[in-house]
């Protein structure tokens, strides 16, 4: 398996797991309290921080052994560009959604959460596109 494909798997699994853990904690904390009144900030930041740290750590471990395997070539760069292009669409959707929610003066909770959700979707969709390109083939035209 190509090193970049391993990194795509790591990003997919870690970002989805971190988000799932965040959701479980927040929903478990809710009870009768409305979601928008919950203290979510530190949980959200920890979830993002831990996800980034775990991705870096696992990425380093995946690249151990053969420095040659970490080399990126033309195909890796082309597949990387494709996955970035696909993943970026969700960042734009998240930005527009957050803008509209801010204009509608919704609670910060919902704005922060919609941005986080679209970050996760962006990472997940970009990773799936990358894995698909490595597994099923990729034509540059």
């Amino acid at each position: 398996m190509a090193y970049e494909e391993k990194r795509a798997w790591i990003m997919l699994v870690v970002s989805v797991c971190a988000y799932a853990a965040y959701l479980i904690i927040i929903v478990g904390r809710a009870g009768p309290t409305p979601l928008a009144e919950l203290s979510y900030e530190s949980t959200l930041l920890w979830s993002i921080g831990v996800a980034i740290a775990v991705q870096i750590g696992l990425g380093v471990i995946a690249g151990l052994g053969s420095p040659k395997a970490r080399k990126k070539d033309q195909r890796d760069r082309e597949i990387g560009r494709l996955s970035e292009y696909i993943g970026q669409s969700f960042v734009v959707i998240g930005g527009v959604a957050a803008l509209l929610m801010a204009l509608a003066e919704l609670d910060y909770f919902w704005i922060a959460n919609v941005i986080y959700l679209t970050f996760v979707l962006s990472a997940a969709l970009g990773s799936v596109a990358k894995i698909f390109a490595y597994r099923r083939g990729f034509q540059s035209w």
Partner: protein
Amino acid sequence: MVKPTKVTNSIRALRFANGQMTQAELADRIGVTRQTIIAIEQGRYSPSLEMAFQIARVFKVPLDEVFQYPDSQGEPQ
């Protein structure tokens, strides 16, 4: 579903005809990863024109001995 390429190649046969050259050796010669050579051989990736010329140069053959683009019957010219 990714549309498969119509471009075929003879890299595997050329490797064996050139002293059983391994995929790793070919990859080193043209500066790509072994996974990329595997993907090209299996038709899962179409290399750039420059990479195609580099592969042909390694085997010291013209480009069309490495890559072929067969005619399709009934296809408009």
